[in-house]
């Protein structure tokens, strides 16, 4: 279990850095969504199923949807 936690943790840090540093905004959103999904795994490890289900639907689903809809309104990536 600890090995899996550490692995997920490293993945989270990497996807966090990529979410910040990606050139394209859409990539950023996807990495942010990935980060959320990985945190869902950690919430399950921490015995918090309520938080996990909320984070999966709100954090990973709705946040990404809102961001992508906003990006579409803006008219796509700048560069």
């Amino acid at each position: 279990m600890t090995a899996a936690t550490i692995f997920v943790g490293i993945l989270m840090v990497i996807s966090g850095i990529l979410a910040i540093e990606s050139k394209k905004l859409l990539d950023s959103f996807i990495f942010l969504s990935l980060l959320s999904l990985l945190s869902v795994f950690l919430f399950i490890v921490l015995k918090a199923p309520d938080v996990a289900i909320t984070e999966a639907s709100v954090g990973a689903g709705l946040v990404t949807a809102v961001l992508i809809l906003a990006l579409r309104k803006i008219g796509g990536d700048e560069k």
Partner: protein
Amino acid sequence: MIYYISIILIGIGVYGLLSQKNLFKHLISLALIDTAINLFIVSTGYINGKEAPIYSEFTPIANFVDPLPQALVLTAIVIGVGVLALGAAMLIKIKEKYGTLNVEEIRRGDK
């Protein structure tokens, strides 16, 4: 362990907030910090060898981790998404008013 992950993620979020020029990235950093802090809060309630705080067929008698941080995080997640949606709406208006999302170009346009 999970403490360290969430603290490093908070650091990454703050770094993104300070270093990036695109306003959309600021919003992403904010969401990242929110997730990291939620992770931290839930992990303050974890107790080794205890189960999820739900009475059920599998855990008919209380042997639970701390449920209160989980309840607080539920609230915090929803508050976070509300603020994020407001920010996204403002970004659309910024783009409409200034034609760009770059901080430096907006500051130049303001003067």
